């Protein structure tokens, strides 16, 4: 007792701080373990069922080819061919966010996994990040394959202006994109099949607004600015400026400004998703939607 009294309030405070630090360490460890564990089924599935390679690599090439033929038929600038190829490659990431992460929570709920995730000490952000990273292998392969095949078949002249800027743009675009994906995923905690329609709704309009197959600059300035809320819009625009010699001429904003906005979007979406997921989880628990879709 005497020792404790001598130690005084500083020791108590130190103990609390140490406890908090230990708690933070444990939380971080569980978070990382969760990410790895949830990524694992995706990685294993890609190994055990390889038919996806055909569907994910060759089929998207058909869509890309169609746009290339249209542009060549109407005599559009040759730079557009490269834009289509890079747009086709980046489509893979949007599809991964939309179907393999956001709406995946719907299937997890139907399967009974969602209740087990919520009931465990794991965070939903860790689960979603695991899903995203697990799906990244296939997605990246799809994107790279489209770039290589598209480049070879249609003779696209890639000329990278700056590799660090290119990597930075890609990382920022992905961070913002997956942050936005986590925000939309939170809707699936609350809704059932209704949210499914939201995903469908997001697919084609995003293809249009993000300028997947054409430079977004051709849209009205204000429409393009509004579309910049979707991280792929600016990500794609910046990548095109950094990869193609004629890219800058078709760019919507300068790469520096686009990177600044992307960084802002990444921060807002990632922090927003953290709070939105927590909020939606609370609402879903209050309304009994974690295990039941219709109530």
């Amino acid at each position, binding site marked *: 007792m005497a020792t404790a009294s001598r130690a005084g309030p500083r020791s108590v405070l130190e103990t609390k701080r140490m406890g908090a630090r230990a708690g933070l360490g444990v939380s971080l460890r569980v978070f990382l373990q969760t990410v*790895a564990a949830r990524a694992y089924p995706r990685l294993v599935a890609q190994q055990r069922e390889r038919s996806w390679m055909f569907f994910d690599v060759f089929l998207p090439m058909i869509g890309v080819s169609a746009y290339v033929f249209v542009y060549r038929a109407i005599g559009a600038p040759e730079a557009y061919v490269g834009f289509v190829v890079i747009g086709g490659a980046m489509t893979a990431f949007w599809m991964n966010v939309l179907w393999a992460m956001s709406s995946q929570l719907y299937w997890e709920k139907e399967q009974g996994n969602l209740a087990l995730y919520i009931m465990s000490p*794991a965070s939903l952000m860790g689960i979603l990040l695991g899903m995203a990273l697990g799906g990244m292998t296939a997605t990246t392969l799809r994107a790279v394959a489209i770039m290589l095949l598209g480049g070879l078949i249609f003779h696209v002249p890639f000329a990278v202006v700056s590799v660090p800027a290119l990597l930075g743009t890609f990382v920022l675009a992905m961070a913002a994109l997956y942050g936005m994906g986590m925000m939309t995923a939170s809707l699936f905690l609350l809704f059932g099949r209704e949210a499914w329609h939201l995903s469908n709704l997001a697919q084609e309009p995003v293809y249009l607004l993000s300028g997947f197959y054409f430079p977004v600059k051709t849209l009205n300035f204000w429409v393009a600015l509004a579309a910049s809320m979707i991280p792929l819009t600016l990500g794609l625009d910046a990548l095109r400026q950094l990869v193609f010699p004629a890219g800058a001429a078709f760019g919507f904003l300068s790469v520096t400004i686009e990177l600044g906005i992307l960084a802002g979007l990444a921060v807002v979406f990632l922090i927003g998703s953290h709070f939105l997921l927590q909020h939606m989880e609370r609402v879903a628990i209050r309304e009994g939607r*974690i*295990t039941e879709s*219709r109530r």
Partner: protein
Amino acid sequence: MTDDIAIQTEALGRIYKIRGGKKKEPKQLVALEDVNLQIQRGELFGLLGPNGAGKTTVIKILTTLLAPSSGRASVVGLDVVRDAHQVRPRINMVSGGEASGYGLLTVRENLWMFSQFYGIPSKDANRRIEELLAQVGLSDRINTKSSDLSTGLRQKMNIVRGFMTDPEVLFLDEPTLGLDVGAARDVRRLTRDWLEASDRRAVLLTTHTMVEADELCDRVAIINRGKVLACDSPSSLKHRLQSEAIFRLEVSPLNGVPMTPFESIPGVRRFAHSPGDGFSTLEVVLEDESILSPIVSQLALQDIKLRSLQKCEPTLEDVFVQLVGRSMAEVEHGDGK
């Protein structure tokens, strides 16, 4: 609250709002009403009731998956709403017929994945997985894809998932649903062994199988329409009926003979009949044995032949019937009164 209490609920209630059409007001379904329970560490506690009684709702609230509409609940002294994040590492749940995990993963991989959500180091997790699979006799299936497992084997894997994180409180929601007799017996034995390995653990089991509740549980709460009707050890609950005499009579087919003359005999608490193949079975609960005589006389008057007569020891089914007025099967099928 003492440290020995694993679960406590106070006036717990839950109302579901069921959405109607666009212009309709949402309907309200009272799933739980004023549920008060106290479960000690070291206890295997059963919630017994028909489908739709509110058993799963209790479990969902206690596992932090559903918020109560009224009252409060705590697990290991922590409020399930306010302290949900502290409750979660200390609990686990296994439901009957659940299809959790991923079919493409093997048994080991599925179990490892869930262990990681609890922060268990991979080495420890793999050791525990091997030990527990050996206990449930599933070692030879460790590298089998879970989609290739039968229902019974899959449920054993789920049970291992529940035990693997070494929870302080394990929730088993109809864990033997759909299992054959042997597999159900294995699951019960494993549950009992796991509980007895540490006095810090507790199990809350929901079931609508009387034998399971009777055989496995230290105490049972009988629940119907969201209300707890009785709570005691199975033997004490049955002892309440000891003063009554219960008989099972096998008689010639009743063929529409009215039951009113039997039910109106003074001292008849319950008179139920069920048809058999070429005979009918009467289950009769009487105030005392002396009332059997007028029953037999009435059978003779109605020209019903008595083929056999058996005095029964009360079961939890009889307790349920006494409390609810109908058998559990009748409640589930909406028959009877």
